[in-house]
């Protein structure tokens, strides 16, 4: 089926015509004192306020038309029903199925709950001290070896929800190692005890070189301490993969293999057994709440009308900013230290999904797709890149993320009042920054000092959570997943493949040979010269 390009949609022209007609945000707020009330949506403990986006009622109405013109209702139904939405790899993308409550799961997907129960049993064994290392000692440390989706999701979630860790999970320390250069492992192996450390190897294909090179290093480290290879494999390695064969080949014991499936994309996999590190670190109950929160967002996305639909609105506003207002940068600004890794998580989710320039059927497209997306804890970013947002020459859109309630479990602490004061200071900063970005000079007393000129009109949305917990975090992540999918449908691209990442992997293999002095010399002079210099500096001429 030929995909209709965004700029061929009838309503796209109308949207472009609107671009020049939308006044400055300061003026929009002046015109309508109820703008914020009219431009906020709430569902599943998350409130989206998009009143600081540069849109008018006319724009919204045309974006709504766009939603129907690109047949999003049909695409959403297809996504949930398991249709082949990933055409270049000829498969479904059923991360939503992973979150469906077990009682509603059709027979064909009974494997999902089975895998979760297998994972739960494993988590229970480790947390209760039943699982033993080769010498019979209990496990004290777990290291998750994975990269990309097998790393960022669990890392981000465990960091965000630490305070909710269940009592039985508290004694166990969970670590993450992802980098191909072994830096993180190098630090970890220095102080971990091989007798009491369990490694999770998470890789969808179980061929990811980054992860498997880390796993090989660990294997060598363990082999020195453990007298028997069988015992080492049985007691210290758990495999998490869609490829049972590859796990088998590597040596993962059958009972230590946690499955997931080809129809779960890597960057959508934290809901599967890839979440094992989450369950180990925080407890299986927390992991289940995360799934439940995502499910609530799935239901909202599936059923709410477009202008009342949080992920759909985030997607439509994103398309408006990128394709009509030509804003090619998007900042993720959580005003919450617990969401430290959330920007990195979204960098992968959005840019790996939608950093594409051909349609689902492979034809080139001639408009922008995913913007450059980056971020940082908001209050820290104020001391880093906000200068550029306020007075630079780039237009940048932003998402502010904020939890209304905080520190509720610390009410009896002596420093509770002080913590609440910090929380309120943080909220004040978040609101101040989005206000100044939107209104510019209009937010302050007028000044004719050119250094104190603030143009404003930088659009942003604010995602306000009741509180950051497993349920709202699950919803928040699902929200961005659905935003990504919605945008991909509008752009006509496939968000579920990542061919751009493949080439580099192949070329790396060529270059390994060059470094070993065996490669072909047909490469470009820059690469050859660098390789020669490196070999010379390492004394390997």
């Amino acid at each position, binding site marked *: 089926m030929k995909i209709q390009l965004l700029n061929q949609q009838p309503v796209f022209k109308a949207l472009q015509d609107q671009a020049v007609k939308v006044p400055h945000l300061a003026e929009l707020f002046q015109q309508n004192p109820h703008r914020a009330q009219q431009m906020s949506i709430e569902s599943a403990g998350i409130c989206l306020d998009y009143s600081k986006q540069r849109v008018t009622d006319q724009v919204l109405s045309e974006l709504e038309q766009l939603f129907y013109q690109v047949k999003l209702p049909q695409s959403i139904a297809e996504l949930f029903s398991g249709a082949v939405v990933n055409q270049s790899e000829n498969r479904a993308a059923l991360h939503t199925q992973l979150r469906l409550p077990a009682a509603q799961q059709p027979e064909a997907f009974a494997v999902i709950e089975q895998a979760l129960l297998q994972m739960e049993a494993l988590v229970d*064994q480790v947390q*209760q*001290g*039943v699982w*033993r290392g*080769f*010498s*019979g*000692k*209990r496990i004290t440390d777990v290291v998750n070896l994975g990269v990309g989706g097998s790393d960022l999701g669990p890392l981000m979630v465990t960091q965000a929800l630490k305070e909710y860790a269940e009592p039985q999970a508290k004694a166990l320390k969970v670590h993450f190692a992802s980098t191909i250069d072994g830096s993180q492992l190098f630090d970890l192996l220095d102080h971990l005890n091989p007798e009491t450390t369990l490694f999770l190897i998470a890789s969808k294909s179980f061929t990811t070189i980054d992860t498997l090179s880390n796993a090989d290093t660990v294997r060598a480290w363990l082999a020195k301490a453990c007298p*028997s290879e*069988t*015992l080492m494999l*049985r*007691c210290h390695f758990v495999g998490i993969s869609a490829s049972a064969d590859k796990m088998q080949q590597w040596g993962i014991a059958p009972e230590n293999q946690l499955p997931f499936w080809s129809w779960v994309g890597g960057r959508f996999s934290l809901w599967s057994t890839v979440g094992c590190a989450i369950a180990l670190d925080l407890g299986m109950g927390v992991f289940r709440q995360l799934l439940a929160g995502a499910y609530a967002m799935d239901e909202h996305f599936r059923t709410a009308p477009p202008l009342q639909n949080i992920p759909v609105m985030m997607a439509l506003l994103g398309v408006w900013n990128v394709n009509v207002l030509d804003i090619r940068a998007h900042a993720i600004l959580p005003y919450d230290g617990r969401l430290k890794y959330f920007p990195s998580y979204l960098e992968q989710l959005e840019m790996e999904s939608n950093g594409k320039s051909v349609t689902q059927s492979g034809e080139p497209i001639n408009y922008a797709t995913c913007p450059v997306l980056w971020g940082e804890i908001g209050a820290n970013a104020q001391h880093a890149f906000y200068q550029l947002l306020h007075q630079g020459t780039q237009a940048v859109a932003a998402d502010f993320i904020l939890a209304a309630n905080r520190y509720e479990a610390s009410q009896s602490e002596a420093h509770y009042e002080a913590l609440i004061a910090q929380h309120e200071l943080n909220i004040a900063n978040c609101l101040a920054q989005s206000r100044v970005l939107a209104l510019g000079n209009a937010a302050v007393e007028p000044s004719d000092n050119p250094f104190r000129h603030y143009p404003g009109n930088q659009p942003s949305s604010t995602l306000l959570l009741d509180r950051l917990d497993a349920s709202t975090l699950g919803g928040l992540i699902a929200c961005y997943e659905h935003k990504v999918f919605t945008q991909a449908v509008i752009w006509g691209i496939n968000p579920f493949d990542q061919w751009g990442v493949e080439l580099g992997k192949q070329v790396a293999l060529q270059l390994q040979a060059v470094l070993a002095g065996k490669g072909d010399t047909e490469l470009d002079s820059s690469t050859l010269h660098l390789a020669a210099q490196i070999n010379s500096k390492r004394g390997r001429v």
Partner: protein
Amino acid sequence: MNILIMGSDITAWTQAAVLASSGCQVSLLLDQNVEVESSEPQLSRLVQIQQAEGRLQIIRGESLHDPQTNLLIDARVNLDFDSRKQAIEQFALYLSKAQSLVVALVQPVEIGTTDRLQQQLNDQGLTQLSVVYWPSFIQSGRAIESFSRSDRIVLGSQHSGAVQLIKRLLTPFNRSLDNFMLMQPKEAELTKVAINGMLATRVSFMNELARFASLNQIDIEPVRQGIGSDSRIGFQYLYPGCGFGGDAFLQTLQQLTQALGRDYQPDLLSVVCSINEQQKDLLFQKFWRFYQAEIQQRTVAIWGGAFKPNSSDISGSPALILIESLLAHGVRVRLYDPAAAEALSHYFAEHSKRDQLVLCESALIAAEEVDAIMLVTEWKEFWNIDLAALRQKVRQPLLLDGRNIYDPAYAQQSGWIYSGIGRGQAL
């Protein structure tokens, strides 16, 4: 003298029986809903005699208001401050202003409890009550003797009247040597818990040495004797083993650990406790290593479930941890204990793998066709068992001696693969 004792554990029973036997009129008020089973035959007999003589009255669950009472002994355990205070207040309400009463706390308490209690009672106008701290040093296994012939009597009191009363009470038990020590209540409270802390530290230190010994072909036994022979140290509590237990002991340790850990410094005692927890897992780890983790479907005999010999008390016993781990790994357990079998049966009654646990009538029956024997409690009847004959009973001659009661050479000659705690054979 008229005495009311509140509490249900071995301290309460022992004090009740022994004080009655010295001529006091004693009422023992048991905690409600507590099952009472004296684990000491001698003590049970003494209780019966004193009841028959009419000097000991046992009451359960209801409060008692006897205006004749001179001494109220509070031997209740696991109690928060407010509930403790409440029961004492209740009792005191029925006293006239003129009637004085000594209240003696005898269980380990949070440091400062005695003074705090006195202060709060005073504030409520109950100034005729004198609260003292009189720690009990009763040991299960030798309960009567450890009370009636105590090495020392420590009393923390600020009231001379109370001191006189306790001294008079203890005259029959303190005749050969006056070992009465009077100090401030807080000092007595700390003394009580610190003694247990010191003993636990000695044992854990020996266990740490034993671990080193086992890895370096050193037999800890002559080392232990060498250390003990130094008169500054002495021989007591220098036995490495598979972990110590006992409710009272563990409870005081926990209290002291909390008290010492309050300033966020890593304290010695928490390491002492964690070494002890590791020791309780040691026999399982040896079993695991010996069979290279292939332990499912195997059978193990456990000899001894009580936390120490001559007691049916299983609280904090290493056997509990061991059985739990073995059952979780699909190992069948044949347990023998001359006194604690019933308590163990009760403890594991609701366990999902209860059917893997068999309680046996004798040590030899327990050993039939097993893949290992784990000796957990050093009951006297195990010491001189015929190891060569025993060898014929088992499937695999693996003897894991958690109390170092056998001579390794003799065990090996009798055909056993023997491993004690720090006896030089790493397993």
